[in-house]
């Protein structure tokens, strides 16, 4: 359990994974690329949750499991906890991370020319950015699924580097 790997290596690998799937393997099928990336995240989340719940008893209810994701699980992976948790008490949870580690270096240029020249340009940029969120969504889904909670996870970048993950538990 004591071996470590360089964070730059992991981050570079993730960047290349998204780039390969979006620009080479499924260049004109972005939806398919997104699902493949999310599926990889699912496997990773599944195994990580196995590892990080080794000495713990079972979770009493969904809220406890989500709190585990927000605190211990997030700390193990991103060295910080989720900053804000909201729920509608009917199976939907919103996890807000105000400084998501994998988005901390992401940046585009917001010059006035970009906005004027084409609304398309901005959409492409935000789509490229959101491609990088499918992997963490998959991780959350895989982790919860391993804890016995099937769900759907989506993400949204409100303003870099903050982002929120929406978990919808399947009834």
């Amino acid at each position: 359990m004591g071996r470590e790997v360089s964070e730059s290596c992991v981050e570079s690998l993730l960047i290349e994974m998204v780039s390969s799937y979006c620009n080479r393997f499924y260049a004109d099928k972005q939806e398919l690329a997104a699902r493949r990336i999310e599926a990889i995240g699912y496997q990773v989340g599944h195994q990580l949750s196995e590892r990080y719940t080794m000495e713990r008893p079972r979770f009493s209810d969904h809220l406890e499991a989500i709190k585990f994701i927000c605190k211990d699980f997030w700390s193990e992976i991103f060295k910080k906890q989720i900053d804000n948790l909201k729920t509608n008490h009917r199976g939907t949870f919103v996890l807000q991370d105000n400084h998501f580690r994998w988005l901390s270096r992401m940046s585009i240029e917001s010059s006035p020319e970009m906005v004027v020249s084409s609304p398309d340009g901005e959409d492409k940029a935000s789509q490229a950015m959101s491609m990088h969120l499918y992997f963490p969504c998959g991780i959350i889904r895989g982790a919860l699924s391993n804890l016995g909670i099937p769900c759907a996870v989506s993400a949204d970048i409100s303003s870099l580097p903050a982002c929120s993950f929406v978990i919808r538990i399947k009834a």
Partner: protein
Amino acid sequence: MQFFGGSDISPSPPAPTASGNNAHMMYMFNRNGVCLFYREWNRPLWTLNAQQDHKLMFGLLFSLKSLTAKMDPTSAEKGNLGVPQLPGQGCSFHSFRTNTYKLSFMESPSGIKIILVTHPRTGDLREALKYIYNLYVDYVAKNPVYVPGTPIKSDLFNTNLDQYVRSIS
């Protein structure tokens, strides 16, 4: 060394801008001569259009490195010119000064060239250029949406660079 139309520029150096920025402008090139980045804080005089300006700058650096390496009286071997070397190794110029500005230069082993033009009384900027290279690594090389070899368009890089340049004495 007088390069750009010496007679038009007054001998006294221009005062720093109201924003307090200590540098005039900065260029970044990659190994292939693509101008990755250009930013100016205080440049009252343009002699050429942007494209020509960048090409001239790149050509100038290439020639200067070649010249300084060939004129080296201490080195026994003539290394492979055009190949980027580790900073400090081999023989490469790092700055030149005129009566109106100082140009500082650094090339990384990956071929990234950083040029910073400041007022003539600036001290040695080699450490500053290394710091700027670190900013490049953090906010450009590690930016998930950056495509290597293309011009740099990153707000984070711009902001951190402006902030740092303001603090150079």
